């Protein structure tokens, strides 16, 4: 079976600065993968390349064997690290926007999740706090029945209680053939939900390993290993 995500000698250079240095990487289906690395290590660059918002400088990135395009955008559900919602829209309008454009958007599920958070369909995004907007965006993204979820810093800016809610939402809303790629530097928070980890540092892949192997063979938690690998 073709891997859901594959990078071949993938490199990205921004006006002289190298963000990704020709990485090779394969991510399989049905895994929850942590893309872990310090700030500026290339996590966001990789996710943006996979979602088609950036074009590679050299090498290629393949989603289910295809270069990013209309077909891969159907399969990929992407949560950027910023809010991309139009402020004047209501939650309900946003739901219909998603269900209009994505065949795999599960509208009743999204509506139910929003209701549980006490977010009214008629609420305008303008009136919401940043944290609430992030939750709305996460619910929109996780309510798609996608093959690959790319979540860029989903727990970066929220309090620990909200973190639990978000992680719970993520693990309870993807199907078992789908892969979830979570980029973060808050390792101890995501560690319990991860199957695999990718350590990325200064544009290079430092390590790819399953969490079980790290625990069994090295007798360490991912957090401890991360601190070791990225010791300053």
């Amino acid at each position, binding site marked *: 079976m073709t891997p859901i995500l594959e990078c071949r000698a993938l490199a990205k250079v*921004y*006006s002289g600065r190298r963000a990704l240095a020709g990485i090779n990487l394969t991510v399989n289906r049905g895994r929850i993968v942590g893309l872990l690395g310090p700030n500026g290590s290339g996590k966001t660059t990789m996710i*943006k390349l996979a*979602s*088609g*918002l*950036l*074009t590679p400088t050299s090498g290629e990135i393949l989603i289910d064997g295809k270069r990013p395009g*209309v*077909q891969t*955008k*159907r399969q*990929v559900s*992407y949560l*950027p690290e*910023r*809010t*991309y*919602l*139009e402020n*004047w829209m209501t939650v309900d*309008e946003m739901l219909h*926007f998603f269900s*209009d*454009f*994505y065949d795999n958007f599960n509208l009743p599920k999204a509506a139910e999740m929003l209701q549980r958070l006490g977010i009214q369909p008629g609420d305008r995004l303008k009136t919401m706090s940043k944290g609430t907007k992030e939750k709305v965006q996460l619910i929109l993204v996780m309510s798609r029945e996608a093959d690959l979820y790319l979540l860029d810093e989903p727990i970066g800016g929220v309090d620990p209680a909200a973190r639990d809610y978000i992680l719970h939402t993520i693990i309870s809303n993807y199907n078992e053939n789908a892969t979830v790629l979570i980029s973060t530097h808050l390792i101890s928070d995501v560690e319990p939900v991860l199957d695999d980890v990718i350590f990325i540092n200064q544009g290079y892949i430092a390590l790819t390993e399953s969490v079980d192997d790290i625990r069994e063979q090295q007798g360490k938690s991912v957090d401890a290993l991360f601190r070791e690998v990225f010791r300053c």
Partner: protein
Amino acid sequence: MLGKLMKYEFKATSRIFLPFFGALLVMSGITRLFWSLFQTEELDEMITQLVMIPKILSVTLYIMVIVAIFVVTYIVMIQRFYKNLLGDQGYLMFTLPVEPWMNIVNKLLVSLIWILASMVVMMLSGLILAVGTELWNEMVAEFPRIFREIVDLFEREFHMSIVWLVVEWVAAVIIGIIHGILQIYAAIAIGHLCGRYKILASVGAYLGISIVVQTIGGIFSVVVMIPFINAANSPQMLSSYWNLSMLSGIAISLLTAAGCYIATHIILTRKLNLE
């Protein structure tokens, strides 16, 4: 998918345009009312001066609304392209499963329709101001005669059909608008390539394209004119000169529009770098 994109684009833009259109129509009604209520003939000088105040005020406001519509049209056109595609919202628009050309054509068509709509609304407001006034009644009475004279002038003297002239003009206006919009898009897209000085680079790109197009257009119009140096003597020559320069103008506009479209498309597909 293009239809869906346009549906949302209209939703996003109508909340800005419709209030302005409404304001213009209301202002034309008010202006008309003030000017027809305070007929000055039977009033004394003092009151004449006093009633001038609401009259002038309403005309000033009316003109301000018209200016505002022009300004808003430009701002919305630029903002919807820049913010919605190349700003944060681009993260959503470019991860939708739609072909990149649809994003450009969507913005283009919706902008074009709003510009045409504002023309229609301005005509309507003109009608509100004019219908029923003496001047209007005279014009209506005279119009069939004047129209026939114009048609005669063109058809008999210059051997040009009025229908063809109208078609040429409508084509020139619509293609001109499309060219204008696409040139702005291309300038923004080119500016977006330029790292830190995006806005400056966009303005530069816009001026650059304008200079190139106008130079080529200028040279072309001179070249077109050469065979017709003595055209003034012959109406037939004059009409073919007219046709040729109109058509070459349209062709240049069309080519520029196509060039700008292709440049925008290439940048948004192969060079897309959202930060």
